[in-house]
């Protein structure tokens, strides 16, 4: 694998994570429990889609086939996506959506902090921009997880169920392969495994405050970030997200 091939894979992983999570979160638009939450979720989705434009825009540049961020978002199939499985699982209830957001935000904020020191100026610039938004996402998802976890009996039960359901998807964010080795050697991105300690400390602190218990098992569902095997949910998501560009190629308004 050449450095550029690895770089492209890395950028697709970053951009696909934000794209797929952004789309999932946008599904709440008009459905959230209260207006303020609806607006907050829509704003979070918007930030993530904005970050996607930067990551996939750079991916298209590195790929060198003249593809735009839109081309990569709308004209690839499920097996070409490189997002972690965590972001493609269905929203579930509001609690599960916010728990997923928290588990992702915690990783995202640590990852972006490291990427701000990337040897590639373009990566560092995107990370600097995105990290400001993500710090805000993390503050909000942490507060909500604590509020609901340490809330009523029912909200506590639902948040614990959400954590139990989502925890097996956390490990994939820290998996390392040859792409990561190449990126780490080039100083472009850190080895994901090196983020785990900081992540565990952050997550443990917030979940303890939320009176929630992290499951014992470190079993991890994998297959998203290397595209080997996505869940059955991704294809359904793509049919929604891509149908317009598939049915009317090149449509604009």
């Amino acid at each position, binding site marked *: 694998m050449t450095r550029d091939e690895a770089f492209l894979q890395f950028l697709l992983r970053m951009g696909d994570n934000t794209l797929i999570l952004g789309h999932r979160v946008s599904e709440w638009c008009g459905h959230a429990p209260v207006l303020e939450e609806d*607006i*907050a979720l829509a704003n*979070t989705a918007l930030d993530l889609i904005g970050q996607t434009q930067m990551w996939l825009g750079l991916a298209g540049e590195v790929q060198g086939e003249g593809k735009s961020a839109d081309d990569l978002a709308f004209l690839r199939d499920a097996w070409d996506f490189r997002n972690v499985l965590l972001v493609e699982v269905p929203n579930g209830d509001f609690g599960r959506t916010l728990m997923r957001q928290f588990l992702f935000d915690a990783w995202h904020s640590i990852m972006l902090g490291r990427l701000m020191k990337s040897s590639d100026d373009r990566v560092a610039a995107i990370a600097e921009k995105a990290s400001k938004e993500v710090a805000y996402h993390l*503050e909000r998802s942490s507060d909500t997880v604590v509020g609901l976890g340490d809330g009523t009996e029912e909200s506590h039960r639902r948040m614990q169920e959400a954590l139990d359901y989502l925890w097996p998807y956390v490990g994939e964010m820290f998996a390392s392969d040859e792409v990561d080795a190449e990126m780490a050697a080039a100083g472009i991105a850190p080895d994901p495994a090196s983020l785990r300690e900081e992540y565990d400390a952050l997550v443990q602190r917030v979940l303890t405050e939320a009176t929630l218990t992290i499951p014992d098992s470190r079993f991890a569902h994998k297959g998203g970030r290397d595209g080997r095997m996505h869940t059955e949910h991704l294809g359904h998501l793509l049919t929604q997200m891509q149908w317009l560009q598939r049915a009317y190629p090149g449509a604009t308004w």
Partner: protein
Amino acid sequence: MDRATVEQVWEWLDAVPDPEIPVISVVDLGIVRDVTWEGDTLKVAVTPTYSGCPATSVIAMDIETALRDHGIDKIKLETRISPAWTTDWLSDKGRAKLKDYGIAPPQPAGGPDRCPHCGSTAVEKVSQFGSTPCKAHWRCTDCLEPFDYFKCI
């Protein structure tokens, strides 16, 4: 025709309103980062407030339209994401206008110092997000009016 001076162009841009918060200009907002002539082409560097802000493309169009109206026909708009936009770049004039408009200007402490309507310091957060990506939703517990707070980033 002599080409306009850079100072003149900044003045023109200071008359281009932000599409979402029309009381302040794109210059007040601090998103115009650089204006330079490159031969007969005017280069304007613009930075987005939030990476997904839908107003960004409208702002670029408004800037281009304004400059064309002033007779400049060779314009190159560049999106510059680094250094990342910060509310420190809001002008003092912009801050004052925000307040008059009913939007509490950003504060380093992370929340509004007072209600932009009645001036009371008894304010509370309703939601971390508001009507646009750059704002949060607060309310005054004295005059009971809700208001937007321009988030400090």
